[in-house]
């Protein structure tokens, strides 16, 4: 069959001929109407001419004519309904419109016709205040849902249970249900069960009525709208029920019991079902025998059960064939190799630029593209949904809360968020610990909650979502919140903060991650396991992540873990001190500012930078790393933000951004925790990756000691 284009061409000339006739008829009628403005017959004729031009024009592909005529038609619809009087002005405008339409039709006026049409429309709107503001309504191209005409796409196949019970008069509107059934069957695997229980005895039988109705089990990837489209002309007059009964996700080969199916479909009442179940025999036959359900409905339910079981079996087999099980170790090797490739490719890039050979540059760029794709693919293979650890967490919540006599619900949002496999393994323990903490210390006992006017049941919300190259995991409870005063007292007690030093808001809560700080007065079984929030912090740090806590007294606590999407490759900022290169993870870098020698004069050992009025302490890396030599006249401060605090790192120069393949430093350096790893640069040398938060911590601790020493 001809496509739409050919279809249009074939009919364009016929339409032109027709439209010419209609336009001259329009002209005649308009002139007559000027003499006889009340003549409804004439108005009707004008309207019809416009309507035909619009409808047929649309079919023949004259879009400009269609949208313009639509406006005219709207105006004359108002005239026809006597909402707008026929005036000389209106007739004048309409006559001009006719001429414009003719120009459009013949294609003689080019783009000026469109402009003229716009003027007419605004004139019309001017003289007809009632003109609908929406103006040219976009004419929807198709009568029936477009989706129905689409080829089966990527959409997932679902299994639907459909009951179609047509109006008994369906034949009288010229519809044969069997065609509809055929159409439905064409959508996918379909099982049809006719229900005959409504057929009356012969004496009452009307031969023109439809007594049958049907149950369908259909598996299709076309979507529910395609199903509705089958019944589009009868859905108002018929009973049509469409339910998804299998989303293809269930792993279980089993399906609902017969009783459940019948109940779900409303074919039996819950009461009857209970009665039948009590007899402990084949439920279906009992219910048919006792007349609680018709044989046809039972057949339908049995068929559904059989069908779904079969489908699930097929799906499982297909799934097994479509995926390959690979030991994750092999994936790790693959990721390592890709890492090597990225490194090598960086070298190639660098080399190609120094060689100044355009062909070599082109090759290097090609390799870069491929490497990027490869890396992304490998990384995506390693991604698994975080929900894989959730079942464990649910269990913990269930067990712990009942142990502690608390009522707690765990709500999970974003469980489908994907993370690197190795990350998920490592995030599980800290997450577990935070949730334990919420259950143990956060959520109050039910009675206590009621006394506070809170619902008996506490809620812990676990919310996982992507944010840039990071994944955020939030654990939020509606418990009592952290006690800032208790933390402060304890922290002073433990010497974590000097007495008299004011620490505000968030910073106070951050202290719960310091080692040795537990404010729980009684050591419970849960909290007394010897792992504190400092261990959580350490674990998250090891993943190059950050953890923050916010709390509202009496309202709850929210712990936010931020971890990079993948462990193997990060975006880094390459910096230089003397001849040594270091990488600072780009995820924590806020900005870089210059520091000139003269600015540092007088600040003594207190390193403070003034960045647009904000006071930011900075750490001189050359100094603490013991790198000799003289710093350049202008140094750079890389401002970073971790755990909600800003700290700068003073370096000689910033080289630029670099894609960093992280290499473990190995057990030899396992105590050197301010270096989170190493990476290999384009020239083959090694650069160290800075663990900013550790350096800050050590700097502060040793700074405190130093102060103490100097005081001696």
């Amino acid at each position: 069959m001809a496509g739409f284009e050919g279809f249009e061409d074939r009919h364009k000339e016929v339409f032109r001929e027709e439209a010419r006739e209609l336009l001259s008829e329009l002209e005649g009628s308009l002139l007559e109407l000027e003499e006889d403005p009340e003549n409804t017959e004439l108005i009707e004729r004008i309207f019809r001419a416009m309507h035909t031009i619009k409808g047929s024009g649309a079919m023949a592909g004259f879009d400009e004519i269609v949208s313009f005529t639509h406006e005219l038609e709207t105006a004359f619809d108002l005239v026809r309904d006597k909402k707008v009087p026929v005036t000389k002005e209106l007739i004048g405008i309409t006559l001009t419109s006719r001429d414009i339409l003719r120009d459009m039709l013949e294609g003689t006026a080019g783009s000026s016709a469109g402009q003229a049409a716009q003027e007419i429309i605004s004139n019309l709107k001017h003289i007809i205040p009632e003109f609908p503001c929406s103006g040219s309504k976009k004419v929807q191209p198709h009568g029936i849902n477009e989706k129905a005409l689409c080829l089966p796409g990527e959409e997932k196949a679902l299994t639907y249970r459909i009951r179609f019970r047509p109006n008994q008069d369906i034949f009288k509107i010229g519809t044969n249900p069997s065609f509809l059934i055929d159409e439905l069957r064409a959508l996918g695997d379909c099982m049809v069960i006719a229900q005959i229980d409504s057929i009356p005895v012969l004496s009452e039988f009307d031969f023109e009525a439809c007594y049958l109705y049907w149950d369908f089990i259909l598996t299709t990837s076309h979507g529910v709208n395609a199903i509705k489209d089958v019944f589009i002309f009868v859905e108002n007059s018929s009973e049509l029920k469409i339910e998804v009964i299998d989303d293809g996700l269930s792993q279980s080969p089993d399906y609902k019991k017969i009783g459940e199916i019948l109940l779900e479909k409303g074919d039996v009442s819950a009461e009857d079902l209970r009665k039948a179940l009590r007899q402990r025999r084949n439920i279906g036959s009992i219910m048919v025998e006792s007349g609680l359900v018709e044989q046809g409905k039972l057949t339908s339910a049995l068929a559904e059960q059989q069908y779904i079981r079969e489908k699930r079996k097929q799906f499982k087999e297909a799934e097994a064939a479509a995926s390959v099980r690979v030991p994750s170790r092999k994936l790790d090797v693959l990721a390592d190799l890709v890492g090597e490739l990225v490194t090598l490719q960086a070298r190639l890039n660098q080399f190609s630029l120094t060689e100044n050979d355009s062909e070599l540059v082109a090759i290097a760029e090609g390799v870069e593209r491929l490497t990027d794709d490869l890396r992304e693919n490998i990384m995506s293979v390693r991604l698994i949904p975080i929900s894989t650890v959730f079942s464990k967490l649910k269990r913990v919540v269930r067990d712990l809360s009942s142990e502690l006599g608390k009522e707690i619900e765990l709500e999970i949002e974003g469980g489908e968020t994907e993370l690197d496999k190795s990350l998920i393994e490592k995030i599980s323990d800290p997450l577990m610990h935070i949730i334990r903490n919420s259950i143990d210390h956060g959520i109050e006992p039910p009675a206590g909650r009621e006394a506070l006017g809170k619902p008996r049941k506490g809620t812990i919300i676990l919310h996982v979502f992507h944010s840039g190259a990071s994944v955020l995991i939030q654990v939020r409870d509606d418990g009592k919140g952290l006690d800032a005063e208790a933390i402060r007292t304890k922290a002073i007690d433990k010497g974590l903060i000097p007495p008299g030093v004011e620490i505000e808001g968030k910073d106070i809560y951050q202290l719960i991650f310091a080692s040795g700080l537990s404010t729980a007065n009684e050591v419970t079984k849960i909290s007394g396991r010897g792992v504190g929030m400092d261990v959580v912090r350490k674990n998250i740090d090891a993943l190059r992540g950050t953890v923050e806590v916010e709390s509202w007294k009496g309202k709850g606590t929210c712990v936010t873990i931020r971890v990079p999407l993948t462990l193997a490759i990060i975006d880094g900022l390459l910096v230089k001190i003397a001849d040594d290169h270091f990488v600072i993870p780009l995820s924590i870098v806020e900005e870089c500012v210059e520091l000139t020698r003269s600015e540092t004069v007088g600040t003594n050992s207190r390193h403070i930078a003034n960045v647009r009025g904000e006071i930011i302490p900075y750490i001189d890396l050359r100094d603490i790393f013991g790198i000799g030599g003289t710093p350049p006249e202008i140094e750079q401060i890389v401002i970073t933000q971790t755990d909600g605090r800003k700290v700068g790192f003073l370096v000689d120069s910033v080289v630029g951004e670099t894609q960093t393949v992280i290499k473990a430093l190995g057990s030899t350096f396992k105590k050197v925790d301010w270096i989170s790893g190493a990476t290999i640069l384009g020239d083959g040398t090694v650069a160290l990756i800075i663990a900013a938060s550790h350096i800050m911590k050590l700097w502060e601790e040793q700074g405190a000691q130093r102060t103490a020493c100097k005081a001696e």
Partner: protein
Amino acid sequence: MGKTVLIVDDSASMRQIVSFALKDAGFDVIAAVDGKDALEKLNAIKTEMIITDLNMPNLNGIELIKQVRQTTGHKFTPIIMLTTESQESKKVEGRQAGASGWIVKPFTPDQLLGVVKKFIR
């Protein structure tokens, strides 16, 4: 021999478009220019389906549908209305008159056949 479809429309180009599309799909097509013409053609030629425009001189589409349903032999004949988006109320009126379905202009041959094949083969 294919089934016979009657296309009723005062627009020559519409008649041609529908008729070409259906003939391509193997149907026989007869045409009428308005409702009155249609009733005459129905009496003369055995027709399995009617596709009709609504806005026509000399007996409009709705009236045609009402009369067809009263005509012997056409109680169960499928009738499809050709409507435009702005004729939502006509759709309801047509259904009450006994129309089987509708298709909104403009449409492609495939869309037309999709509707036609709900009723006849």
